């Protein structure tokens, strides 16, 4: 019912077993006099409505989310991912807002910020009671209230605490300690005086929730409210332009200058190419194994949601070092071939991407021979953006092997070309 309505930060979930809780929970019960939560709810609940995306053939809800009024003439703010289906397949979906009496009204998406996961919709309803966006500076530990429609159960209010911006992210995200659940996406998180601190966007579960900061929301709403604004005729084109600019922002300087190199088994490999990357590693040395395997994975936490299982803005580096402990040359090369063949490419849907096409060469850089494969696929709806996977295996030693993979999603070809060339020089024998 609400599978799209709340995003789960997958990269973080994968890393979770080794990760400790991000912060200790701030103790926010305290000396300050507090307004009752019920009062907050009573004051602001009429600013917020349920949004449902209807599949036009079945005339039934495909997903639900939450939105809130940001102007007197019916403009609402929500998440891009709440209304993504409408933008990706306008012929099959429509957006409706459900008023407090339960009546549905068709709404139109007028502007999006795909990178920060925001969208502005025009409802045609009069909204004298609305939030006014503007700078707000809570302190860590401040009590905040998140509102929305969890699992279509009706408008609810959730208390939680402000824990500042996440570190290690390409774009700012607020860490909110409170239970945001599927369906609350697009709802506001506010102070007790009704100032919007952020827009509910995703959760890792167990009260680890994330908000799009007010500044990004203000910028988008400001653009729509500015005199002379005309709604975009092609939102997909806007999204393409936003993603193109965004990838240039973070890929344009990646691997430039001196890279941080680290020793791993018999190899020297690139690690933590930028502060936004987080690396995890490990080793496998079983009694039964005739080889030893070391691995290191570095990835950014930020994925830009596009639709379904399609996301953009992923940069991932994986190194896998193999060392023989009793395998002869031919047997080791069988192991090496198999590890090289292992698929760790991002999944994809035919609606959004083409098939992969790959090219393979044995390449030498600075005297190191390596097998290099580049696989490429185009994003169908976003001209000029591609997913790419570069796989490299160092050659020439009977007992040691390294499979190194660089994965880029939603990147321009120029960046793919440049990063490929650069990356080939960033793996070598010690």
């Amino acid at each position, binding site marked *: 019912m609400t599978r799209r309505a709340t995003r789960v930060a997958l990269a973080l979930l994968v890393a979770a077993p080794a990760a400790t809780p991000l912060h200790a929970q701030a103790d926010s019960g305290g000396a300050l006099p507090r307004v009752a939560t019920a009062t907050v709810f009573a004051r602001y609940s009429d600013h917020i409505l349920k949004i449902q995306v209807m599949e036009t053939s079945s005339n039934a809800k495909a997903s639900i989310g939450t939105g809130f009024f940001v102007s007197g003439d019916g403009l609402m703010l929500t998440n891009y991912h709440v209304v993504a289906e409408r933008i990706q397949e306008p012929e099959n979906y429509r957006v409706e807002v459900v008023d407090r009496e339960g009546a549905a009204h068709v709404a139109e998406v007028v502007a999006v910020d795909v990178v920060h996961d925001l969208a502005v919709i025009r409802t045609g309803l009069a909204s004298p009671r609305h939030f006014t966006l503007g700078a707000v500076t809570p302190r860590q530990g401040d009590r905040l209230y998140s509102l929305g429609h969890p699992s279509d159960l009706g408008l609810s209010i959730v208390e939680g605490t402000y824990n500042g911006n996440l570190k290690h992210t390409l774009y700012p995200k607020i860490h909110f300690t409170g239970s945001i659940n599927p369906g609350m996406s697009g709802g506001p998180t506010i102070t007790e005086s009704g100032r919007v601190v952020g827009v509910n966007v995703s959760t890792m579960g167990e009260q680890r929730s994330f908000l799009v900061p007010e500044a990004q929301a203000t910028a988008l709403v400001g653009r729509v409210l500015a005199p002379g604004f005309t709604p975009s005729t092609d939102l997909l084109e806007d999204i393409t332009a936003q993603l193109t600019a965004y990838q240039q922002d973070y890929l344009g300087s990646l691997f430039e200058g001196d890279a941080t190199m680290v020793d791993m088994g018999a190899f020297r490999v690139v690690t933590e190419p930028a502060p936004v990357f987080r690396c995890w590693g490990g080793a496998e040395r079983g009694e039964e194994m005739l080889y030893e395997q070391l691995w290191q994975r570095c990835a950014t936490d930020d994925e830009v949601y596009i639709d379904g299982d399609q996301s953009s803005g992923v940069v991932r580096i994986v190194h896998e070092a193999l060392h023989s402990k009793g395998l002869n040359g031919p047997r080791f090369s069988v192991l090496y071939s198999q590890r090289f063949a292992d698929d760790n490419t991002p999944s994809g849907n035919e609606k959004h991407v083409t098939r992969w096409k790959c090219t393979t060469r044995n390449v030498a850089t600075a005297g190191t*021979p390596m097998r290099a494969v580049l696989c490429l696929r185009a994003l169908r709806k976003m001209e000029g953006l591609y997913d790419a996977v570069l796989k490299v295996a160092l050659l020439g030693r009977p007992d040691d092997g390294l499979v190194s993979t660089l994965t880029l999603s939603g990147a321009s070809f120029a960046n793919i070309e440049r990063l490929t060339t650069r990356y080939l020089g960033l793996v070598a024998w010690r």
Partner: protein
Amino acid sequence: MAMIVEVVHPRTGEVRQRLRVDALPFAIGRSLENALILDDPHVDARHARLVEDEDGSLVIEDLGSVNKLATSMHRDAERIRLRSGAEVTVGRTLLRFRDEAEPLPPALPLHRGLAAAHASPGPQRWHERTPVRLALIAATLVLLGVHAWFDNYARAGATDALTLALGVLLVAVVWAGTWAIAARAALGQFRFVAHLFIAMAAATLAILFGDVIAWGQFLMPDNGVLGTLSAVANLALLSALVAWHLANASALSRAGRWRAGLTVSGTVVVLIGLFALVEDKPFSDVPEFSSVIRNAPAAIIPTKTVPEFTAAIVELRADVDELRAAKDE
């Protein structure tokens, strides 16, 4: 061109008598004045005769007999034109007419034919001797086992290798057994060891050839010919396999055996082509690439420069853009 008339036993098909039709008219009947005398009480004294009609074709004419003439199509016929292979019943006697120039299959060689079972065997070449063949079968088994051991990296590699070699042997035994039974039916000879040897030799060749191709793909990943070469070689091996089995299971000539082998390969190609045509290739988000890595010293691996690799990537982009454009239509 003269015709031969055969008197055939109606149930067993055995030919009791053959006569050349030298002169026309050629009389057929029960009395002793006929050219072909039939000892059949249902045949008239002067029953029928062979004559030439106006076109010069041979016909059999009834001479007003009680039971007339019959073919598989007509009873009570009075005049039947005769082609080679025609069968005519006179009374209760079946006559078959055959052109003397009718082509014949070549003679069966003595050491392979039915006669071999009763005659003394001809001289055998060294590789046709059973002990030699058994030794070669054992050698191919060992080779398969060693190959399987080199082809995995588990600690229990030797057990796996043995299992695989025995598995291949089992399949080869069933395959060779089928051919041997066919040979028994066609030639009266079982020749199981010969067929088993052929099966094992073909399996070994296929595996060794696969290795050569894998090395080729490792050293020259951008060589597009290897795939075609591999397909052609496998089809050639299949043709050879069938031809080789037929040499031990039929009396076909060498050309005939290869024709049969190539027909089998051709059928395989057509079937694969048909499947490819019918099968709707589903979308896949898993890339396909040549992942084979071999244990080779750096010095012998031909390599490209980074700019050459980048140039290949630019070509790749054109391919991907084409895919994108094709779907947009």
